[in-house]
């Protein structure tokens, strides 16, 4: 027999900690069918094997079972359609009133339930008391005191949950006042046999709330719908309120009564530790400097010091000096063919190495993010920065990915995980890589040195371009149909600060970090091998072979084929096109490819040897156009892999990559065409197209926001 237990509770109620305590390391993560919401399952401790197995399904952290957010819809769909054998409802004992609001709705589903009051250690520390027996009586289900963090009460909770599931007695909802109850039974009577027999109340309440999803599901006839509507309107008039408010108020009223019954509140001192921290951290004057300091620390440690030391070690020493040469020597010693040696060593091991090099940075960064999230500061970041970012359709939390993006786009994209709203997160993922990452610096140095005499303004202009690209993209995208729809509510809880638990932090770092490593092993690896193959093989003297001269490679041929695309941008030479393609493996390759293609072999990081040649091949505007294209276009494969992982949808992945490349192309086109026109006076078709692009861009920027019906 397999029993399924759903774990439901508010965000910040300790749900993740409890899930880990209930299942141990026995977990698997996936996604809810059809949506990007993460689904976690695990086998209940002690019930992994044997006669009765128990699976714990971790529902998303939610405040309500409303039909509006994806998480809530996913949760209620699971509860009503899959009908798990029991619900474990976790509530935060230090914030009972708001937490029990979800409880009242979970009770309405009729599924057998046990309520776990978490953080009882803190409740006792605050010298507050909870009358468990009274609460059980009021709620009509077993209540267990626990502390998920200290793993207290977990065994009892497991025992109770399993026995509740086995008994399979449906739970009863809490009753409203007489008047409202009569309204609900009146609706039930009107709907008659249309309501599902096992749980008519839930549906009747939803119909009263005018819950569109349920009304649709019931397929009411037009006349019946009208009758019900008229009835609800008459009730609304009587209450002088709308039905959704009536029910919400009634639920909170039930809770107030219950808490009055069973909870002994002590007058809390007005300044708890959390209040005192907040007085400094979100202080009007100090908040921004403190925020800057925290961000500097995160950046400094995870990107410039510890992170880059570890990454350089993996890239240069571990792979560059140890693994690659020894693998090459080993293959040579067993008489392996040269091409196979190249494929294995440079293509596969080198390719994976380039990606794995990011792993230390990612883990260090995730460590910080997990600590910031777990201690409660992350919510304050959103609080402090919201004002600025929501103007461009982003979230206050978007600041972190953008900052990290100046170091590396891969962890930056992964840092977007902390943004709850789907829309804000997608927008952040799409725009973060516009910020020049450290691998793009050599390209900037090359162009600045070769074409602008090393002028000091080139590098800042690259960052400026990135920031402008983010801001304008935000404004443009938020007006498109893709991002239209109801504005995501920013009604956010500011949870109490607490010391992060070591276990939680490591769990989260491991879970997030390892998913990137898995990605590195699949799609990123494949793409890298293909580009390596293209640059290493080709036709020399009429035979297909491993080429000595990169000019003969498939990449050169491909470069020739696609070069015309870039002619309007001012760099239609196949060498530049090929360099941009190798930039997909890693952006710093662009400079190296130029070196090889112009016959210099190995070049310095800023490509100093090339400056003379390049200045004769490029003009100032074609050079800057090349720079801007490489800054804004699709990032490297590793970052694309991160985008694919975080978007978790092929469609959104291609939208992101397509948008980035299109924007890069349009910007480069305008820079080259307009620049050339102004300096030389040559007016061509390209100038016209650039003009149209600029006008179109301005239109997209200033057009009025879509009105949502």
């Amino acid at each position, binding site marked *: 027999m397999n029993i399924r237990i759903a774990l439901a509770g508010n965000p910040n109620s300790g749900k993740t900690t409890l899930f880990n305590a209930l299942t141990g390391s026995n977990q698997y993560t996936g996604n809810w069918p059809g949506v990007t919401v993460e689904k976690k399952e695990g086998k209940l401790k002690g019930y992994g094997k044997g006669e009765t197995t128990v699976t714990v399904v971790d529902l998303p952290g939610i*405040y*309500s079972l*409303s039909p*509006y*957010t994806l998480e809530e819809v996913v949760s209620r769909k699971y509860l009503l359609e899959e009908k798990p054998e029991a619900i474990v409802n976790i509530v935060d004992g230090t*914030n009972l*009133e*708001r937490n029990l*609001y979800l409880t009242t709705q979970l009770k309405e589903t009729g599924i057998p339930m046990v309520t776990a009051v978490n953080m009882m250690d803190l409740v006792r520390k605050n010298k507050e008391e909870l009358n468990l027996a009274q609460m059980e009586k009021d709620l009509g289900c077993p209540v267990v005191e626990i502390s998920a963090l200290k793993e207290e009460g977990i065994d009892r909770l497991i025992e109770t949950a399993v026995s509740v599931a086995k008994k399979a007695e449906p739970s009863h909802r809490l009753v409203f006042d007489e008047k409202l109850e009569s309204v609900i039974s009146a609706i039930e009577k009107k709907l008659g046999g249309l309501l599902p027999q096992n749980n008519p109340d839930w549906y009747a309440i939803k119909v009263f709330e005018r819950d569109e999803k349920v009304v649709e599901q019931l397929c009411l006839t037009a006349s019946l719908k009208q009758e019900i509507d008229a009835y609800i309107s008459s009730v609304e008039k009587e209450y002088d*309120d709308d039905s*959704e*408010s009536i029910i*919400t*108020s009634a639920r*909170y009223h039930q809770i107030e009564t219950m808490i009055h019954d069973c909870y002994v509140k002590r007058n*809390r001192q007005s300044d708890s530790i959390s209040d005192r921290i*907040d007085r400094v951290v*979100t*202080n*009007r*004057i100090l*908040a*921004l400097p403190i925020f800057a300091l925290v961000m500097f620390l995160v950046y400094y440690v995870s990107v410039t010091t510890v992170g880059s030391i570890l990454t350089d070690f993996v890239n240069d020493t571990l792979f560059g000096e140890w693994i690659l040469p020894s693998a090459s020597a080993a293959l040579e010693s067993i008489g392996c063919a040269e091409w196979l040696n190249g494929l294995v060593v440079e293509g596969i091991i080198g390719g994976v190495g380039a990606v794995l090099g990011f792993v230390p940075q990612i883990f260090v960064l995730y460590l910080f993010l997990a600590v910031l999230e777990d201690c409660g500061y992350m*919510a304050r970041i*959103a*609080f*402090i920065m*919201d*004002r*600025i970012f*929501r103007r461009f359709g982003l979230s206050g939390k978007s600041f972190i990915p953008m900052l990290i993006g100046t170091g590396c786009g891969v962890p930056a994209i992964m840092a977007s995980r902390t943004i709850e709203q789907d829309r804000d997160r997608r927008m952040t993922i799409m725009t973060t890589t516009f910020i020049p990452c450290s691998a793009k610096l050599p390209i900037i140095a090359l162009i600045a040195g070769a074409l602008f005499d090393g002028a000091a303004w080139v590098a800042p202009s690259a960052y400026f371009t990135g920031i402008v690209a983010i801001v304008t993209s935000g404004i443009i995208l938020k007006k498109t149909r893709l991002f239209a729809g*109801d*504005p*995501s*509510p*920013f*009604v*956010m*809880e*500011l*949870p*109490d600060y607490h010391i992060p638990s070591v276990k939680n932090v490591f769990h989260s770092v491991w879970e997030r970090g390892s998913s990137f490593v898995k990605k590195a092993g699949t799609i990123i690896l494949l793409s890298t091998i293909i580009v390596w193959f293209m640059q290493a093989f080709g036709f020399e003297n009429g035979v297909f072979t491993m080429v000595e001269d990169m000019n003969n490679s498939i990449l050169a041929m491909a470069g020739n084929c696609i070069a015309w695309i870039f002619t309007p941008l001012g760099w239609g030479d196949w060498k530049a096109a090929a360099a941009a393609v190798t930039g997909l493996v890693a952006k710093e390759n662009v400079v190296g490819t130029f070196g090889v293609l112009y016959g210099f072999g190995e070049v310095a990081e800023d490509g100093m040897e090339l400056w003379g040649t390049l200045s004769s091949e490029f003009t100032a505007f074609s050079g800057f156009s090349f720079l801007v294209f490489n800054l804004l276009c699709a990032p490297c494969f590793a970052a694309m892999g991160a985008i694919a992982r975080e978007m978790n949808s092929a469609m959104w992945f291609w939208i992101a990559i397509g948008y980035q490349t299109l924007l890069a192309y349009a910007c480069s086109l305008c820079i080259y065409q307009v620049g050339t026109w102004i300096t030389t006076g040559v007016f061509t078709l390209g100038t016209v197209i650039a003009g149209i692009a600029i006008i179109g861009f301005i239109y997209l920027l200033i057009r009025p926001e879509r009105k949502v019906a």
Partner: protein
Amino acid sequence: MKTLKEVTCGSTVNVVRIHGEGAVRRRIMDMGITKHTEIYVRKVAPLGDPIEVTVRGYELSLRQSDCEMIEVE
């Protein structure tokens, strides 16, 4: 009509009604801001928006634009 937006820091008010519609309104109510609830306006973010309030014993952050939907007295 007085809304939560006009309430100064450090004062306590009572909710009269929630205006508006849809997801944001429901979320505001789900978070415990319902008729007759007491709201204490705690502080304003450094850049003037959002604000932090205490409601039903916990801290909540609300945008000024959403505060306009909350009628208080």
